[in-house]
């Protein structure tokens, strides 16, 4: 047992293992309504002054939709401003799609996003206090925002959690030095 600890200690102290990582697990709950549309989701890292340090994910209808009645094409970007905090803090400064960040909407379920200090956007994240923010807006449905405060880089393993009430389920943010 003692020997095992020793090995662990050595591994942690070695420069190879010094890359911190962050894993986000969050749930888009199944919502039982007659008209369900996959929600728009934005996930970002917010500085203490509420400016955006990094966009982690933006899920939206990235192809033109079709109006059921007129058959006219309607761009999915039309509803991006429904992610009103993200739109205000970052979206309106962006050109969609955002490479490596934006993608199509997804069905209800649990999702995992993994990040490492060795790669963007966490590679460029200055040491400090942040909030991980998850914002969800669903067409003809609700809107919710959940945030998890964290310090970067982590000095000890952190298992942070938050929970939404309607459009967002459990949010877990695990950080490892």
């Amino acid at each position, binding site marked *: 047992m003692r020997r095992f600890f020793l090995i662990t200690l050595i591994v942690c102290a070695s420069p190879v293992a010094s890359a911190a990582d962050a894993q986000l697990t969050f749930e888009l709950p199944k919502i039982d309504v007659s008209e369900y549309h996959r929600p728009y989701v934005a996930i970002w890292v917010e500085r203490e002054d509420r400016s955006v340090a990094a966009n982690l994910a933006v899920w939206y209808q990235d192809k033109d939709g079709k109006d059921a009645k007129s058959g006219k094409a*309607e*761009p999915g*970007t*039309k*509803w*991006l*401003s429904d992610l*009103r*905090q993200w*739109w*205000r803090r970052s*979206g*309106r*400064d962006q050109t969609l799609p955002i490479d490596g960040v934006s993608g199509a909407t997804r069905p209800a379920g649990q999702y995992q996003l993994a990040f490492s200090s060795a790669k963007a956007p966490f590679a460029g994240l200055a040491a400090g206090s942040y909030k991980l923010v998850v914002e969800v807006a669903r067409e003809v449905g609700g809107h919710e*925002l959940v945030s998890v405060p964290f310090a970067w880089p982590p000095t000890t393993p952190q298992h942070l959690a938050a929970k939404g009430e309607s459009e967002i389920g459990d949010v877990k943010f695990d950080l490892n030095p």
Partner: protein
Amino acid sequence: MKKPSQWAVLALAAMLPLAASAHKAFIVPSTTVLSDGDDAWVTFDASVSNDLFYFNHHALDLDHLVVTGPDGKPVAAENKNTGKWRSTFDVHLTQPGTYRVAIENSGVFASYVDAKGEKKRWRGGVDKLGDIPADAKDVEISESQSSVNTYVTLGKPSGGALKPSGHGLEFAPVTSPNDLYAGEAAKFRFLLDGKPVKDLKVTVIPGGTRYRDKQDETIATTDANGEFSVTWPAPGLYWLSASLDKQKPTTPKAKERRLGYVATLEVLPQ
């Protein structure tokens, strides 16, 4: 005396947004913050009503509708229609930034006694003052300038459409009028002929007056720099208004100038 035309009445209502009557002129946008870069449209309702923001008194005349694009150039409104209680029109937002949508009215009011001894009232443009008979007596002329405004933004807010012209009572926002959120303070500025207006009372009333007993108005006062701030208590549409009277007219024939500014502002939830 000739009965004033319906349009004259409407124009008068638009010119006097804060006149003694309780009527409030407004333009309500269908949305104020847009993200649709390809084919963004906003539709507007323009009305003079007792209640905010319902249509129950007059349609607002669109003859003096001015839409200014983010580049400061005029944008044509489409699908204009004037109904019984409101006018409607659409604006196609073809470039990103903030748009100012306004109905601007200016003119002079005159009262005089004509050669037959009859008391007359007249209104028109400053350039038409010559229409008042040369033999008129007891001529009293006052000038009026007013605007009914709202703002919409495609993408990132910008300032090109908000640049003051240096004429009349103008709203010079410090905070973008399309970047307003409940619980936050917004700072704005008023200018008269390009100069800060001190001690101007600015009234702010939340919409939805039909469903409550009180107006719930708040009154802010501008400082020496013409600035004032408003902390929005809740999300929703707000009607902001300010007026000035007894100001120096632009035409020496007028005794005074009255000015009014109103705007419909949308405050979003956090």
